[in-house]
């Protein structure tokens, strides 16, 4: 069947509702049905499924560059439930859902009431009855998407929960790294900063180790302790050990209020001991790329020069963010 208007070939694919969806390139389509209803964390994905996400995101990225319009989510209503302030993740999901033909609604969630523990479930139930089929959930409390997934009959995509997980960020980071390094197998990736409070780091530990990389962590002791027994992960006492021969380095946003919790004496001392700059990176592999989930505190966890240098993949991460979220939404909608 030919979709004349868009010039795309389409094919019938089995979906829950028997809906016909257009699919630009059968070769890029998953061979079998995607087994997951939700994306709560990357821990639920096998290595093959991780690769499938990455491959489909590459496909989506190319389609987007060609400004093609897809209608994989036609008839779907995607609700953005951001119970915590966020700009880039929210916009990225919004663009992704719209690029797939979904109707996007922003759910009116009062951040202050959610943080007081008022009923997330009640809010989501109401929205489900109004026709929302997929909820993109950002929440300040670890595990909130699990509560949502077992309480409300909609698809849940975790857009970041507390300190726990940020699966789409990890997937886009893995894609960015795979683009830069070819493969993650046997690679040494260093992650620097407040690992303990970082949902980005946790999801990356799952994704990167599953894809064959070894991950080294460095940062103030209170922020890296506890990860020593995570398979495939090494906690470095010295930043230099983590960076030595690293194939890539990821640094995390420092929450400026965290110094009060006793993790570091001051931001100045943090920067002096763990801030990334070109000199420190000299021990890494030549040209080893640098990633940051953004937004950066330039001059704190990374120098502005390094963030803007050729080694920085921060821009690629943003581009991959939309493509990866398109891939995830497309897979879940099967």
């Amino acid at each position, binding site marked *: 069947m030919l979709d004349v208007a868009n010039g795309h070939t389409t094919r019938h694919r089995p979906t829950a509702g028997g809906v016909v969806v257009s699919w630009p390139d059968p070769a890029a389509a998953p061979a079998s049905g995607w087994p997951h209803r*939700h994306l*709560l*964390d990357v*821990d*639920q994905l096998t290595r093959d499924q991780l690769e499938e996400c990455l491959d489909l995101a590459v496909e989506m990225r190319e389609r987007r560059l060609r400004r093609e319009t897809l209608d994989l989510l036609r008839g779907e209503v995607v609700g953005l439930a951001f119970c915590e302030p966020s700009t880039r993740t929210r916009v990225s999901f919004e663009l992704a859902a719209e690029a797939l033909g979904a109707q996007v609604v922003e759910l009116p969630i009062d951040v202050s009431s959610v943080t*007081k*523990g008022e*009923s*997330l*479930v009640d809010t989501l139930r109401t929205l489900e009855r109004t026709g929302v089929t997929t909820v993109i959930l950002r*929440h300040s*409390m*670890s*595990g*909130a998407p*699990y*509560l949502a*997934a*077992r*309480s409300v009959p909609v698809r849940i995509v975790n857009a970041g*929960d*507390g*300190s*726990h*997980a940020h699966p789409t960020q990890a997937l886009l980071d893995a894609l960015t790294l795979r683009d830069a390094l070819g493969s993650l197998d046997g690679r040494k990736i260093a992650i620097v900063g407040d690992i*303990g*409070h970082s*949902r980005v780091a*946790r999801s990356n*530990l799952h994704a990167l180790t599953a894809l064959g990389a070894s991950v080294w962590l460095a940062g103030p002791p209170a922020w890296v302790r*506890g*990860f020593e*027994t*995570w*398979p495939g*992960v090494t906690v470095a006492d010295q930043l230099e050990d983590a960076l030595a021969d690293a194939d890539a380095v990821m640094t995390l946003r420092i929450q400026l209020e965290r110094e009060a919790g006793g993790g570091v004496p001051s931001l100045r001392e943090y920067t002096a001991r763990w801030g990334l700059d070109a000199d420190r990176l000299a021990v890494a592999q030549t040209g080893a790329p640098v990633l940051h989930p953004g937004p950066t505190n330039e001059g704190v966890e990374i120098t502005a020069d390094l963030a803007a240098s050729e080694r920085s993949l921060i821009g690629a991460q943003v581009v991959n963010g939309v493509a990866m979220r398109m891939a995830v939404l497309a897979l879940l909608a099967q």
Partner: protein
Amino acid sequence: MSSFGSLGDPAATFVLTGARVIDPSADADAVRDLAVVDGLLVDPATVPSDAPRLDGTGLVVGPGLCDLHVHLREPGMERAETVESGARAAAHGGFTTICAMPNTDPPLDEPARVAMVLDRARNRACRVRVIAAATRGREGERITEIGELAGMGIAGVSDDGSVVASARVARGLLAYLSPLGLPLIEHAEDPALSAGSVMRAGETATRLGLAGWPASAELSIVERDIALADETRGWVHFTHLSTEGGLNAIRRARERGVRVTCDVTPHHLALTDAWVAGWRGFAWEEPQGVAADPFGAPLDAALAYDPACRVNPPLSSRAEALALLAGVADGSIDAIATDHAPHPRERKGVEFGAAAPGMIGLETALSLGLSAVDAGRLELGRLLAALSTRPAALIGEARSLAVGSLADLVVFDPAARWRVDASALASASSNTPLLGMELPGVVRMTVAGGRITYRDGLDAIG
């Protein structure tokens, strides 16, 4: 068919034949007939021939269970539990005495409020003792009128839910309590170390991205209070002990003569922090899935972050749970106390970190203990002592199955299994992660003060 009675009922008369009678107070364990006439245990040979005869074959009789730590939520949170519903839950669980904690709303921090609860406790399905607040408003500053409260028969004082944070106030309490023979019942948790935490620190907390309180938060208070009890010759009782370090500190203190006792909850013996990640095996079972591989195994979306598993003190590691179980087995832990903490649905059906801490325990305590017995981790006699004679002794109550004693006992079928469903529970709440599980041990009859307070089948024969 099960039914409840009360302490206001007429005294019971019956003969139970062929049951295994375990009496820790006499170190006795034998299959024999047991007779009750007008509420008193008598020689079966002297019983009138028309007394109802009950077939006890295959059943176990033990002394009535005694719980040092329950929350009855009255006054202030009657939707979660009342004295009446809590007493029924107790009778269903085989308990004949329960001690109500004072962290109600308002708290039980003055004689009139204690009197009100004691009044509501009259003629229920279980004896209800009151533990009074240690400080006014549970604010940790001015101590309550303990002398007058002692005259009302309180079982001790506690600011449970919080520690007595000020060492100076704790020292004053221990000194003031010392001549009254009552314990300061301490919730050992250093708030500076536990602030913001929702589970126990460890691999599971790291995996889940949940703030964890370190074991040192308990140990630092245990060590502090031992030093204070030593100096004041006071009696400190640590409730819901949850760490091996705390237990070892108590063992050492006892060796040098400090008056220190402790209890542990059934859930800290049987459940582990891996339950928060969705594991549903007991501490003594071989860990699998996320319990064996806390970082790598995928989380089960249906069970991970279950707010029913949020308790305070938090569930401990498997190693700590087994160490605590060993402490019950060797007698260094005085009692098993449930910390029965009912909560209405709206306080539990929320995000893990927003959920009220606590789980109910009165109706599952015996079954969890029997699970440990079945697993070979605990002798049945030790279990019954930790659930009955030993806690009863701490609050001045006798428990004996000897002829001449007031009948105060539990009859249960150790082999029968039951399913923990909300409909099977007498508690007004059902917040327990055990819902849906099948557990061994069905209570057939509870007799408190010579009255049948609960009965399930066990009809008269012949």
